[in-house]
């Protein structure tokens, strides 16, 4: 029997049988086993759409929750509301342009989005980057990592109802972003990494702002820690919630702090060193619990490690040029290159293929948020609706990166 799927445009449906809408059967035949299974509602179950426009979904994520009362039975994240087709655009632009396209992907930490493709292109070109440029890359990236993690702390609190931490984190982020604007010329989409180096050398204003900030680095992070770390409500809500085991995390392909919170010391900066990270002294922060609270603590600890790295970089900054001498129009020889870096959310990869023209033949962005977000599906069932936000915030996806 063909099921007549209800349409929201049909006035009769709205007036006479509201239950038909409440049951939100997809208006098309299920296209996969999983979808058929998900949308088959059991007794007493209902679907609840969280998003795409929802205060706590970090962008335009839509999560269809199948719930029994407040308890989640199953869920189906729906992506694509922010899909911009960056890969296709980049394949139709030349190498320099593609970097500008990647900038707004993960808008919270856009320097990392630039760094991965730039490194991939440099590998295609067999290009050596001046050491000062490498140090500048590390410096700006670590600053942004601090900012991103502090923002994570704030958003995590916000998603759990705390109003204040987000504003403290924005105080810090604002300083950071102004500082980076003095270095890169932009506040948010920096476009700082260039093939062969970076777009500008250190300048006085940046250094004075940075010195100013270093003298009280992490003050707001400490304030947020005071507000949250021991707060009984926060701890009670996060400890033991959404725990992921070590094997499960590897199986899910988690990376970054989410994986390290499960006890796997996989940090691309150490596991597969790039840039000048082998020369820098820092610890890979891990935790064993793998729950939401551990993921939070790992990030808090990483802020301190990043500040440590910034300190070392500032002391060891070599002299020299910040840009290799490369032509304006670059045509790498045919080949393939993969570059992965450790972004605040995990392993950020870029796979580039060249066919000898001035446009990349294949340009693939591997975004950690995209993979990390998958973990929602196995870990959320059994939790409550409110836990969706806590777990989602602790995985720290940025939808700009997820949707590419």
């Amino acid at each position: 029997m063909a099921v007549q799927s209800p349409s929201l445009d049909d006035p009769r449906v709205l007036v006479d049988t509201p239950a038909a809408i409440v049951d939100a059967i997809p208006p098309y035949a299920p296209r996969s086993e999983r979808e058929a299974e998900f949308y088959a509602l059991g007794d007493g179950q209902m679907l609840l759409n969280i998003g795409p426009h929802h205060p706590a979904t970090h962008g335009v994520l839509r999560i269809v929750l199948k719930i029994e009362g407040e308890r989640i039975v199953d869920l189906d994240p729906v992506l694509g509301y922010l899909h911009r087709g960056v890969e296709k655009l980049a394949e139709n632009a030349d190498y320099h342009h593609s970097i500008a396209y990647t900038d707004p992907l993960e808008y919270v930490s856009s320097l990392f989005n630039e760094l991965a493709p730039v490194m991939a292109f440099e590998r295609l070109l067999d290009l050596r980057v001046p050491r000062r440029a490498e140090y500048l890359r590390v410096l700006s990236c670590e600053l942004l990592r601090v900012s991103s993690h502090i923002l994570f702390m704030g958003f995590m609190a916000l998603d759990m109802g705390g109003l204040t931490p987000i504003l403290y984190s924005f105080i810090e982020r604002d300083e950071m972003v102004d500082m980076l604007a003095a270095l890169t010329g932009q506040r948010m989409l920096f476009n700082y990494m260039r093939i062969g180096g970076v777009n500008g050398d250190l300048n006085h204003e940046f250094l004075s702002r940075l010195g100013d900030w270093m003298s009280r680095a992490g003050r707001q992070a400490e304030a947020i820690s005071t507000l949250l770390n021991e707060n009984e409500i926060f701890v009670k809500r996060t400890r033991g919630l959404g725990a992921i085991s070590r094997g499960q995390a590897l199986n899910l392909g988690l990376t970054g702090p989410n994986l390290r919170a499960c006890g796997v010391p996989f940090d691309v900066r150490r596991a597969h060193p790039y840039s000048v990270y082998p020369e820098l002294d820092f610890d890979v922060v891990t935790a064993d619990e793998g729950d939401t609270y551990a993921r939070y603590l790992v990030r808090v600890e990483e802020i301190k490690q990043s500040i440590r790295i910034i300190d070392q970089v500032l002391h060891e900054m070599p002299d020299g040029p910040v840009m290799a001498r490369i032509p304006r129009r670059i045509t790498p020889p045919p080949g393939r290159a993969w570059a992965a870096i450790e972004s605040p959310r995990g392993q950020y990869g870029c796979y580039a293929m060249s066919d000898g023209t001035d446009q990349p033949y294949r340009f693939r962005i591997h975004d950690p948020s995209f993979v990390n977000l998958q973990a929602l599906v196995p870990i959320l069932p059994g939790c409550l609706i409110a836990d969706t936000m806590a777990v989602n915030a602790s995985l720290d996806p940025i939808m700009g990166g997820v949707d590419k």
Partner: protein
Amino acid sequence: MNVVPRSAPRIPALWLLLFALGGLGTLVLLVLIVGILSGVIPAIVIWLGGVILANIAIVRFIVAATAILLFTIPTAFVIIFMELKVIAFMNLRIGPNRVGPWGALASVVHGLKVLSKEDFTPTGADPTVFTLAPVATFVGSVMAFMVLPFGPGLFGVDLNVGLLYFFAVGGLGVVGLLMAGWASFNKYSLLGGLRSAAQMVSYEIPLTLSVVGVIMLAGTLSLNGIVQAQSGSFLDWFVVRQPLAFLIFFIAATAEANRTPFDLTEADSEIVAGFATEYSGMRFGFFFFAEYVNVFLLSGLAVVLFFGGWTSPIPWPWPIHFALSPLESLIAILVLLIVVPVVASFLLAIPIWVIRTRLSFARAFAMGMLLFGPLATAAVLIYLVINLDALLGIIWFFAKAYVFVFTFVWMRATLPRVRIDQLMGLAWKWLLPASLVNLFITALAILVVHP
């Protein structure tokens, strides 16, 4: 061209109004004169006075209800402004600072905005219930005000089951939230409504049980009686004798008022706005108002039950009481306000005039007025405060109540939100046993001390 001839000279609107008023005034005067001369009006007045005197309770009720309805609106505005400003300050922000002094009118403008917005009823909603829900919530809050004593003699009704009435009527607000959640035809609203129902039902029990100790100590259910039982110094307040009860009461009251960390019914990061998701315009405004009125209400109740209500923390050491009748005190106030500054200014200005400085007499007089006017006003105020218990009581009551309002706001700025199962667990596993224990201990203590 077809010219319309001017039929009347143009009279300014103001003059027209004055003419009309003058005519009306003459008419009224005529009627009055005729009425008084014929004895009709005195008869009516006497009759009315008799009616009022005979139904003094009803008149009092009507006056009190009107006063409280009028009082809730500025209260809500003040608390909303406080919430905006205090949370902003705690966030290291400035907060509203454009409308009015320090942005104090921001909440008023908010209210006007809400009033001017479209009142939207979603398709699929039940229009009747949807419309009645905010009214039910608001009426619940306002009705509970009737028994709250603001000062000595300043209360709507002194019911002998005042506390019971308070909780009963306060529980009415839940019905409104539940109605809103059901009628909105929205899953978020439904969840919010159900959450609020579960939360209120759970927290009513510890809230009520925690108060039983106070009732036993005071020996009355009347809120006035409870306040009078605490008169004396701050050591007589029930918070000293019932600290555990106060703690339970405060937590349960936070949950009752839907405040952070228990604001699950409208948890914005979870279920968008809970029961209020589909509300807009003044219907939403009613919910909003009711919430803040509730905050004040529960703060006031906390003050009445545990912090001595309108009594001052330290008994007034100098019992100065000019035993003046109201008429005499009115004359005294007038004298203070009008005669004293003038006389004082003359006294100040005359020597200046005599010495013939460069200061003119008029200027010296004006300066004297400016100097002594405020002084006289202050004197009048102090006189009033000393002499009228009601005024002093109201000041104490509001000061204490706003400390609690501040605490509510402060908690909202600091704490994250609890989860629904933890919320229920807290109510049933911790607060309920604790309040029962408190009850037994109090009963035992009363048995031991006053057998």
